[in-house]
């Protein structure tokens, strides 16, 4: 391809950014059109698939991110301190409500979980997984919460449409109820 020499540029940009980089951003930085960026990314990814390579490129949060290959996780864990604070079950449940029902108020989360969610919501906001996205047009104009790009990054999602369909879980109920 004519733009082949730009593959190294993409590799370097992915490395330097750390965060996912959008096709638009590549297109703008490299001054080539989006279609070519797509081709270069695909080629790069294919080359990285070789067994003697340790890195890969994943599509996440609307962009592309350079990561180590998942099968190398055990070796990387020797290096990196992976003692990140894990999300409690309460936090995970609340996060799933926000993810599937967004935009959603604290009251709505509390109705589903049957307990106060102030503490958990504060934690999730602090972690950058959810954020205020507006106000509900109701008495008291309560805050509406939604997920952030950081949420997509953490869960390895390209966008929200990649979330499993909530109705699948309902189907499960019905199957069980029969």
């Amino acid at each position, binding site marked *: 391809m004519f733009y082949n020499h730009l593959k190294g540029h993409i590799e370097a940009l992915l490395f330097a950014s750390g965060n996912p980089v959008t096709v638009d951003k590549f297109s703008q930085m490299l001054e080539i059109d989006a279609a070519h960026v797509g081709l270069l990314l695909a080629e790069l990814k294919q080359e990285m698939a070789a067994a003697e390579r340790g890195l890969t490129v994943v599509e996440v949060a609307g962009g592309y991110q*350079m990561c180590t290959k*998942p099968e190398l996780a055990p070796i990387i864990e020797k290096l990196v301190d992976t003692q990140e604070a894990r999300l409690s079950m309460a936090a*995970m449940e609340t996060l799933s409500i926000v993810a599937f029902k967004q935009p959603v108020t604290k009251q709505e989360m509390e109705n589903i979980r*049957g307990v106060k969610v102030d503490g958990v919501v504060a934690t999730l906001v602090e972690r950058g997984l959810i954020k205020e996205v507006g106000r509900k047009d109701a008495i008291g104009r309560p805050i509406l919460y939604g997920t952030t790009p950081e949420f997509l990054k953490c*869960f*390895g999602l390209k966008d929200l449409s990649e979330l499993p369909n909530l109705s699948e879980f309902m189907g499960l109920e019905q199957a069980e109820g029969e």
Partner: protein
Amino acid sequence: MEAYKIRLDAFEGPLALLMHLIEKNQIDIYDIPIAEVTEQYLAYLRALEEFNIDIASEFLVMAATLLQIKSRMLLPKPPAADEAPEEEDPRQELVERLLEYRRFKQAATVMEGMLHEREKFFSRPPGEFATRFVLPEGLRLDDLLEAFAAVWESAADQFAFIAREEISVQDKMQDILHLLHRRSGRVEFGETFIRSGSRTEMVAAFLAILELIRMKRIRISQDRSFGPIYLALGEGVH
């Protein structure tokens, strides 16, 4: 009772506790034996009390709800008239809440799995690029001079209170005008018209210039960018 002791404070809320009881007893969620479940639920709350653990109000609200459903279940059903709509099961609302809760519990489990998968991909922390500031373009020397005049003027105000007035601003204004007249109305700004070099004279001179400009007795001009700056007598004030 043993099970409760082990998990005394393990339940996030009343729905979590109810789900636990339903799963433990392998109960069909669509046909909850409400009397039995209520009894077990209350037994758990009593166990909490025994251990002097504060019971969150949500648990008590749920206890009341369960007791109410139980009593409604005990009421004899009115004879079913053909035309009358079928009466709602008193458990209906609770079942719906439990189903909704369980749906999100399952969603949470699925999401945890996703998180776990994603954690196998190690990324780098974003490169630390300090935001680069593009310096403003087209700044003029005049901007700098104006800024300096402004700051010096306000500073001079402060000095004026403490400085002994050896040379007054009034005197210096006269002096400058005199100098300008003698040099045919124009003096280069950079040229000194300080006579004694004392601090009070400097301050007085600067204030005098500002004052004369304000009174339009003198003008400051510059023929071209970065060219010399001139003091000149104001028009018609010769």
